[in-house]
């Protein structure tokens, strides 16, 4: 019964979405105020019905109703309740419903928090979001109905959730990631609305910016959670694989990063308008492309739940409509909204343009590497795979190219600046960064590591440049810090996060030590000065698995550091094996032990890792996300109703990127 209510609610949601896409749009075309005024209530209604559908699906999962095919395939009575709940989105149909719910959530949020928008703009934005909802709801209902029943052959027991997904990280990773993914639909809707109305001005950028920042922040956090999960759950100790599905979320992030910066220029200076709109279209198109890649099964991955040509075709057609339609609209309307504001070569405008070019090129190279195997396969050129070395070769130099300019960005002025001023401001930070960066690796290891030195110089360059800028803006007084705007603090946090991430990524890659070996009980091994003693291997039982547990004592210079107990789990319902790594985490280093398989005569394959500074990468991503969220607190995004006029703050030194 509950499943039917859910199904019914989903169909009602589709009807409401259709109304939302059509009625306000019609109102905008003919100038009917009442039709436009319906948009916010329809948006809230859409959220309501999506929420009911989602709650119904969650209920049938929690009740172990195996007559619902989805529950029978992805859950089990032995599964702990928290995982029964997260199993809702641990599969294709359910994750699509989560997508629909979050899209409805964003739509309703725009309806509720946009009181300052002119009605016609709000109606256009909500109509576009309604149209996207129509696409995803019909995808859900027509090709991947989560509520379909298994009658009359109802199984007694479910087939269990993929053990890889039975993890606290997986309870929060998909919702957060989707918040980001789907959040770009708001930027997209604002862009379409602007093209539709033919008005692109600073006010438009100011409306669009907080939404984009929030979506970007969630995407950052979502990607970070995914990386962290892969690190401790996959048992390899790796944190980024350039897996196609990781790339699918990373490409919108790269385009989104460009968009966040480009929007800053558009808001502050009224520049790059068409470009910003194009980026907004591009970021959401990449979100859709990511969905297509993941959901259509053209790519092999842990994330690829389902391989169904009908589904792939549906998303492909949807993608074609969205990308093609928005590009046509752009081609027709963009010239009408281009800007005629000038800027000099040495200015913050140019630096942000450079940021945009770098991030766009990075996006395209990642896109190319991800699609290359598909293209070659489609042309019958054989089955290639493009591995991490390609992405590292291309991506790392691009980011390294970015950082020198990124350090100048915050301190530079809009419109026109001088090399002399940059020199006066940044010579000291540059020298300090050079000295610190070049000397610190001397203490890091036996051999002087050039890459570490470069990374440290870059990270310090960013940090000291920001400190210098902070010092200026607060008038060299600590009390002045309080006067700085939240959006400025957001920028500082995000840039510091980037510096921390550079340190984490490079130091963890350069200084990591790892060894795969065969160990027996009583044996001990030394890695990076830590002594790993395997005490015993014991059998333990969990709620829905039995496991072999290796008990380690890790000591350094005779002092006990940690007791680690990695497991090799055998899940009872599905019969699958899983590695559960044991980690002693720290700000400066992680110690990581994972079990391989039994290799006979009481021996086990054991993987030992020593990973310095690896947490800095995730810490950096958290800072970036926090920075993105903080910018929304800025007062200028919460003003009263403003006329949609072109209010460009020209030549301003005030405010921040």
């Amino acid at each position, binding site marked *: 019964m509950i499943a039917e209510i859910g199904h019914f609610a989903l169909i009602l949601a589709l009807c409401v979405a259709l109304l939302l896409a059509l009625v306000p749009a019609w109102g905008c075309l003919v100038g009917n105020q009442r039709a436009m005024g319906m948009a916010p209530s329809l948006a809230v209604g859409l959220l309501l019905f999506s929420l009911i559908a989602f709650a119904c699906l969650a209920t049938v999962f929690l009740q172990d109703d195996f007559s619902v095919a989805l529950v029978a395939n992805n859950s089990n009575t032995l599964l702990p309740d928290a995982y029964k709940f997260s199993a809702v989105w641990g599969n294709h149909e359910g994750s699509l419903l989560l997508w629909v719910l979050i899209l409805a959530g964003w739509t309703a949020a725009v309806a509720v928090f946009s009181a300052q928008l002119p009605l016609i703009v709000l109606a256009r934005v909500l109509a576009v979001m309604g149209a996207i909802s129509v696409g995803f709801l019909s995808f859900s209902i027509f090709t991947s109905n989560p509520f379909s029943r298994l009658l009359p052959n109802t199984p007694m027991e479910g087939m269990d959730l993929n053990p890889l997904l039975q993890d606290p990280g997986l309870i929060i990773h998909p919702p957060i990631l989707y918040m980001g993914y789907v959040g770009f639909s708001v930027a997209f809707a604002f862009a379409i609305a602007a093209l539709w109305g033919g008005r692109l001005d600073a006010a438009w950028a100011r409306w669009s910016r907080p939404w984009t920042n929030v979506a970007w922040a969630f995407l950052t956090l979502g990607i970070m959670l995914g990386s962290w999960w892969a690190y401790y759950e996959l048992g390899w100790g790796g944190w980024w694989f350039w897996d196609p599905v990781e790339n699918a979320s990373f490409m919108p992030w790269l385009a989104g990063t460009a968009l966040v910066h480009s929007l800053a220029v558009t808001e502050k200076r009224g520049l790059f308008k068409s470009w910003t709109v194009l980026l907004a279209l591009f970021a959401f198109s990449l979100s859709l492309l990511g969905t297509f890649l993941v959901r259509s099964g053209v790519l092999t991955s842990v994330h690829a739940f389902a391989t169904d040509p009908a589904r792939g075709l549906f998303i492909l057609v949807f993608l074609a409509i969205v990308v093609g339609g928005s590009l046509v609209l752009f081609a027709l309307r963009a010239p009408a909204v281009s800007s005629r504001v000038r800027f000099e070569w040495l200015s913050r405008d140019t630096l942000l343009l450079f940021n945009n070019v770098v991030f766009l*090129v990075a996006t395209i190279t990642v896109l190319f590497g991800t699609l290359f195997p598909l293209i070659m396969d489609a042309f019958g050129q054989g089955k290639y795979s493009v591995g991490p070395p390609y992405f590292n*070769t291309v991506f790392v*130099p691009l980011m390294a190219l970015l950082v020198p300019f990124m350090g100048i960005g915050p301190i530079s002025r809009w419109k026109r600046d001088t090399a002399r001023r940059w020199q006066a401001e940044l010579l000291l930070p540059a020298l300090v960064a050079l000295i610190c960066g070049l000397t610190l690796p001397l203490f890091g290891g036996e051999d002087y590591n050039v890459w570490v030195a470069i990374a440290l110089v870059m990270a310090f360059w960013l940090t000291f440049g920001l400190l210098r800028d902070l010092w200026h803006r607060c008038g060299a007084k600590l009390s002045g810090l309080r006067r700085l705007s939240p959006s400025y603090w957001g920028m500082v946090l995000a840039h510091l996060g980037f510096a921390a991430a550079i340190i984490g990524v490079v130091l963890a890659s350069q200084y990591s030590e790892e060894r795969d070996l065969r160990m027996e009980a009583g044996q001990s091994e030394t890695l990076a000065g830590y002594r790993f003693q395997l005490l015993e291997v014991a059998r333990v039982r969990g709620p829905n698995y039995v496991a072999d547990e290796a008990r380690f004592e890790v000591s350094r210079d005779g002092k006990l550091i940690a007791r680690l107990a990695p497991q090799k789990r055998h899940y009872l319902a599905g019969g699958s094996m899983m590695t559960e790594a044991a980690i002693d985490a720290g700000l400066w280093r992680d110690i990581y032990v994972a079990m391989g398989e039994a290799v006979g005569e009481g021996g086990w394959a054991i993987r030992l890792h020593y990973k310095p500074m690896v947490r800095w990468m995730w810490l950096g991503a958290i800072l970036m996300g926090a920075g993105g969220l903080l910018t929304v607190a800025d007062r200028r995004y919460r003003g009263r109703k403003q006329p949609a006029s072109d209010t460009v703050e020209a030549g301003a030194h005030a405010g921040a990127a």
Partner: protein
Amino acid sequence: MHPVRKRRLMIVLFIVLFSSVAVGLVVYGLSGNINLFYPPAEVVAGKAPVGQSIRVGGMVVDGSIQRASDSLRVAFELTDYSGTVPVVYEGILPDLFDEGQGAVAAGQLDANGVLQATEILAKHDENYMPPEVAEALEASGKAPPGAGSGS
């Protein structure tokens, strides 16, 4: 030259320069770092290059897994039922690697026709088989019953 035109020229030059750097990086990155998939039958027939990164996928032959007693060195054979390739690997095997199951090995062929693997990939769950393996098996006309390409 008119200043506006001059600026446009500079922008175009910048874009051209920058994109050639990017294209150069892409080509350089691709040249050494992509690898092609070969079914075992083609490897046996000598169609796969020696000393280059390739991937070979098939079913792990029953009873072929041999482990060293003092290290993690393991030897096994991959087959598509019309050709069999010996594989040597040192390291931890994936959780789902087993005899009679599908697997993909990435590495280089040595002069004796043995694949010196640097990475082993096994299927992700019970019903799943790497699509390359499924296709290779289909091509050799010996797809085991029920082995589709995915779940």
